[in-house]
């Protein structure tokens, strides 16, 4: 059944206007050959996303940042499905900053929240379909036949043995009106969407030609590194740069609001110069910040209820009447995103124009921030989005920290300059996943049914104090603090989830899967504890409580079946299960783990079942599940940012280890066939892995670990081997 969708003519006129304004021509081509001369007279540009040249090249302008999640392939697949173009002729351009490229829900140009496919599906399908209809109309006109007797196929319009390529039709199609209504394909007839497809960006990523922000070269480009305060909220009191300025290659040393910048002809002299700076810092109010004391503060807050995010029934009364009650406390540390590509930003600032090249997830905010610093109008700032060497949320910062700073440095330098963060800078630079502490209680009746659930969460708000506060914080509750905890799907008659939001100067930010990164750990670990307290199998216990949630139940059953739940395992191994919904997708994971004599945790195998609704590129979904699992495993086994005397104690991958090849488990991903609306895939693979491993460790050793990352010593102590 085909769907007829009304299109907003105004939208298309608007998007067309951008093209004729030539904005797109100036935009950055992240890889591949240039699309050739885009002569406006012969180029068919029916909307802001598609440009077809007389040479048959199909240029797709993608408004989402490619940071590994595969949008430079999945979004083109959505367009190509309707456009029926030749896949091999596709070129990708990163969209410039323009309102036509805004997120359809957030109203800004942004890549995040695992929303790209979900929000662009309809818009890009329509864009592709409109272009196809216009090409067909152009051909039908030329042949003087009924458009309905023509069809589009692999870059050609065909009719009764005749065919014309899209390139041949481009100039004519460009003169036709944009249709008001387009007929979208019946999903049952999809030829591209829903079938695995190789990524368009892969070749460039293994021959060194893919351009990341750090790779941008400009004539006369200088490089800067910045010495930033060692304590959050600190400032420069005074500094001397005499020694730094003597380093050959150092061009200048300037103070900027974020610290002291050493500007040089290359990275090495800049870094050497920075080492020779003498800076007196004023540490400010957080000079005494220490993780153990912070933990104590959080622990005491957790002992009383906070602002109520969800309440049903009377949990306190139900607890009192219950046959059995259990309580536990959980902890999850600050985490750095640690993308492989350290932060960087390249700026060419002139009196009436500013060009910025950087890997960002937050184009509108960064562009506007840059304009503010540069003293220019937003339209005078041209932000070129490069490939991102990982984002994970760090490159979507309401504070635009790395962009603002780079514009300040460029202002002082008076020449094009690229600010590069060292790994230490990146790791100590803040905007962490918040530190979380949770206290949770549950009660069971005498047949082992859950009667009440009370969950108190303590942690900083991400959105408070940003322009997103009004949208994301309601009645003092930042939705991101309680997501995954407030809306637990289990059938429990009495439930309360509440929140304390302490304030600290440690900057925090969304970290791949945001609130779910800690709530899933707490909820799914504690659900396991409840199952054991009830004397029930953790899979069967969950399953029974999910009767009204078929998608949760479906993935739970699929993962358990594929993992051979209940079947014997080699001695010393345990299996753990967890299920969690986030970003519109439902995921269950079963982990198989063991611990050695040193308490080192080994994850042997992870079985992952996902229901993310209708799929675009199943191979990308698999890849994102693998990616999320390993990312989450790094946090479960290793990750922690801690403070002493106000300073971050970790500075590189030795102090902040991540999972490497030798720790990487075998991963099996099973995708649930589904006709539901699409869900996200970039983030939802992360939340279930920590609890699945914790639950598996309990099964293997009898020890319940409630603090992330898992501490081998705590494990050995629990096993009586410490």
């Amino acid at each position, binding site marked *: 059944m085909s769907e007829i969708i009304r299109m907003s003519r105004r939208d298309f006129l608007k998007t067309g206007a951008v093209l004729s304004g030539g904005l797109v021509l100036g935009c950055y081509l992240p890889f591949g050959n240039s699309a050739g001369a885009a002569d406006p007279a012969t180029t068919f540009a029916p909307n802001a996303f598609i440009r077809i040249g007389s040479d048959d090249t199909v240029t797709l302008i993608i408004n989402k940042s490619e940071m590994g999640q595969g949008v430079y392939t999945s979004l083109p697949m959505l367009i190509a499905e309707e456009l029926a173009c030749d896949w091999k002729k596709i070129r990708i351009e990163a969209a410039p900053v323009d309102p036509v490229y805004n997120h359809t829900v957030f109203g800004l140009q942004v890549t995040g929240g695992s929303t790209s496919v979900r929000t662009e599906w309809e818009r890009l399908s329509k864009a592709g379909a409109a272009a196809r209809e216009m090409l067909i109309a152009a051909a039908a006109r030329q042949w003087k036949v009924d458009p309905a007797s023509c069809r589009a196929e692999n870059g050609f319009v065909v009719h009764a043995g005749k065919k014309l390529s899209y390139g041949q039709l481009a100039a004519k199609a460009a003169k036709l009106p944009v249709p008001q209504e387009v007929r979208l394909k019946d999903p049952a007839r999809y030829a591209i969407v829903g079938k695995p497809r190789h990524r368009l960006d892969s070749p460039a990523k293994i021959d060194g030609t893919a351009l990341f922000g750090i790779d941008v070269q400009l004539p006369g480009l200088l490089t800067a590194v910045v010495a930033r305060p060692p304590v959050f909220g600190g400032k420069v009191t005074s500094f001397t740069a005499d020694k730094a300025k003597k380093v050959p290659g150092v061009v200048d040393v300037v103070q900027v609001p974020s610290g002291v910048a050493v500007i040089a002809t290359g990275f090495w002299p800049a870094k050497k110069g920075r080492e020779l700076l003498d800076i007196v810092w004023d540490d400010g109010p957080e000079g005494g910040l220490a993780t153990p004391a912070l933990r104590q503060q959080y622990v005491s807050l957790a002992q009383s209820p906070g602002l109520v995010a969800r309440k049903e029934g009377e949990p306190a009364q139900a607890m009192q009447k219950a046959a059995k009650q259990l309580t536990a406390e959980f902890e999850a540390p600050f985490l750095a995103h640690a993308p492989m590509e350290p932060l960087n930003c390249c700026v060419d600032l002139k009196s009436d124009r500013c060009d910025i090249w950087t890997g960002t997830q937050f184009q509108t905010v960064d562009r506007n921030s840059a304009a503010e610093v540069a003293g220019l109008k937003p339209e005078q700032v041209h932000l070129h989005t490069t490939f991102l060497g990982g984002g994970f949320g760090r490159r979507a910062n309401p504070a635009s920290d790395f962009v603002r700073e780079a514009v300040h440095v460029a202002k002082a330098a008076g020449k094009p300059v690229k600010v590069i963060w060292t790994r230490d800078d990146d790791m100590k630079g803040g905007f962490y996943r918040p530190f979380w502490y949770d206290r949770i209680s549950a009660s069971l009746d005498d047949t082992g049914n859950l009667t009440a659930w009370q969950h108190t969460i303590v942690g900083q708000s991400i959105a408070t104090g940003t322009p997103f506060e009004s949208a994301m914080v309601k009645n003092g509750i930042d939705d991101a603090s309680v997501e995954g905890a407030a809306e637990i799907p289990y059938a429990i008659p009495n439930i309360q989830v509440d929140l304390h939001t302490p304030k600290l100067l440690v900057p925090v930010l969304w970290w791949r899967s945001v609130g779910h990164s800690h709530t899933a750990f707490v909820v799914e670990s504690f659900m396991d504890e409840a199952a054991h307290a009830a004397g029930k199998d953790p899979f069967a216990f969950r399953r029974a409580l999910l009767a009204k949630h078929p998608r949760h139940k479906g993935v739970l059953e699929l993962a358990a079946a594929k993992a051979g739940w209940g079947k014997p395992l080699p001695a010393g191994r345990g299996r753990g299960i967890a299920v969690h919904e986030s970003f519109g997708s439902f995921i269950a994971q079963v982990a198989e783990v063991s611990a050695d004599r040193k308490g080192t945790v080994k994850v042997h195998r992870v079985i992952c079942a996902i229901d993310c609704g209708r799929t675009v590129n199943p191979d990308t979904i698999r890849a994102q599940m693998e*990616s999320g699992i390993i990312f989450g495993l790094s946090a479960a086994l290793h990750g922690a940012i801690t403070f002493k005397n106000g300073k971050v104690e970790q500075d590189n991958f030795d102090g902040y280890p991540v999972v490497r090849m030798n720790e990487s488990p075998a991963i099996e991903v099973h995708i649930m066939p589904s006709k539901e609306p699409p869900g996200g895939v970039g983030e939802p693979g992360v939340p279930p892995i920590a609890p699945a491993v914790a639950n598996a460790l309990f099964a293997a050793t009898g020890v319940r670990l409630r603090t992330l990352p898992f501490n081998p010593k705590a494990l050995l102590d629990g096993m009586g081997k410490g």
Partner: protein
Amino acid sequence: MIALNVNGKAYQVDVEPDVPLLWVIREQLKLTGTKFGCGEGLCGACTVHVNGEPARSCITPVGDVAGKKIVTIEGIPAGHAVKKAWLAEEVSQCGYCQPGQVMSAVALLKKHPKPTDGDIDSAMSGNICRCGTYPRIRTAIHRAAGAKKKGGKP
């Protein structure tokens, strides 16, 4: 002036001998495929070959490799078995670590044409991938070695 031989080409570079090879490759030679990830030999993003051996260019002073045979990602031919396997297994995500991964894998296969999972662990554990492409890297290495073995070792 330091004489360098990179990807079979001779260069004369005017830098101090203590500058890490990484920055000479990236900034003087403009070969930006070799990446900066940690600067301390901890992540492998900067891996190149020096006389056929994998080396972390971020901690290799350029003065130490004068006259030696240096190969970067740009010097690995397009049809190389490792590159083909990487594409077939669709390894790359953000891609930032991948030049280093490919360089480590090429060196591994030269030494162990039929590597075991243990060989892969020891040769590849110095290369971090924050996108978690390890299972596919493992499969791709087996594929490049001509063995159809699935990633992971439960």
